[in-house]
């Protein structure tokens, strides 16, 4: 056992949660630059009795710990805490607030597939996948967890710089009445009605609508 309170506590202890992948992260204690500090993490299920150890996060030097497996029952709520250790000294515990994965996990962007016609673009969206314990586990779509999952599709006509967005619930969308032979850029963010969650839009994708075939014939 170490002398508790001999070190300042880690700061900004929070969960970064995306698609139920729940990472506990923190900042090193202030004023300890150059000192080889290590950390130990524990977690707690709200309503139960004991703090639990995460063996892979005992005496670690990194400032994050993957608690996805330990917090995978998303109808539960959790706390986590971390302390800093250096030689015979250690800090008091620094604790998170109550973490509710079902309400707080960020919904990652969908996969976006675009196909173009002369005056239209077809968009097919695939919902993001939930974190899984093992790569060979079967995939669970975030759509299965959040039946009210929606998408905010943002479109930009790069010629006119006109931008607009549409909120859709199904996975296919056709943009019509577009200009031929024009570059359009699209990005999509998933969202779920309810508590505010930070949005994580997809990478911008740009495609050019086909040339207007009729004008081609006139020229000839």
């Amino acid at each position: 056992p170490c002398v508790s309170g001999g070190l300042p506590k880690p700061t900004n202890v929070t969960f970064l949660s995306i698609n139920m992948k729940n990472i506990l992260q923190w900042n090193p204690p202030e004023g300890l630059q150059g000192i080889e500090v290590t950390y130990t993490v524990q977690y707690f299920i709200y309503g139960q009795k004991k703090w639990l150890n995460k063996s892979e996060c005992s005496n670690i030097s990194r400032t994050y710990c993957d608690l996805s497996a330990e917090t995978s029952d998303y109808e539960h709520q959790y706390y986590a805490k971390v302390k800093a250790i250096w030689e015979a000294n250690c800090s008091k515990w620094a604790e998170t607030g109550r973490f509710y994965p079902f309400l707080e996990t960020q919904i990652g962007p969908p996969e976006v597939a675009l196909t173009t016609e002369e005056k239209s673009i077809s968009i097919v969206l695939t919902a993001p996948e939930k974190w899984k314990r093992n790569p060979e586990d079967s995939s669970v779509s975030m759509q299965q967890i959040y039946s009210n999952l929606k998408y905010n599709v943002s479109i930009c006509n790069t010629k006119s710089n006109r931008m607009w967005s549409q909120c859709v619930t199904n996975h296919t969308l056709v943009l019509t009445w577009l200009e031929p032979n024009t570059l359009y850029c699209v990005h999509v963010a998933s969202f779920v009605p309810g508590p505010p969650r930070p949005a994580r839009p997809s990478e911008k994708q740009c495609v050019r609508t086909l040339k207007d075939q009729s004008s081609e014939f006139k020229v000839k």
Partner: protein
Amino acid sequence: QEFRFGSCRAKGVDLQELWEAFWAVKDAVQAQDNITSARLLRREVLQDVSDAESCHLIQALLKFYLNTVFKHYYKRTVEFRTLKSFSTLANNFIAIKSQLRPSQENEMFPVTERARGRFLLFQRAFRRLDREAAVTKAFGEVDILLTWMERFYRL
């Protein structure tokens, strides 16, 4: 948009507004709850509630929140600057509860008994704690309650 708790209907309530109201005070309220080893709205209270039970259960829970939790938490809202959110939640709970008409027919007795059993689990857990601590804990668990209520919400 309306809530459909079995045959009961409650219209004119914007669930998003309730979420935003609670989320504005969630961290402050839950930080006041030091008894993390107790959870009032445990899984057994809200899991696998049938449609028929849901109206009886939500009526009992909202009545308890209004007559006990909010009534005693009110004097702390000024201290913890949660009055605006508190009022939004309380007024909307009143609006929902006032529209609920759970069936009282005899053949519903097994259903009402199951719903009552669930509510008693919650109430007993509440009464095991000191009054102030229990009121704070119950207010901090409104996110659990809203998550369950959302299953009965139709846009």
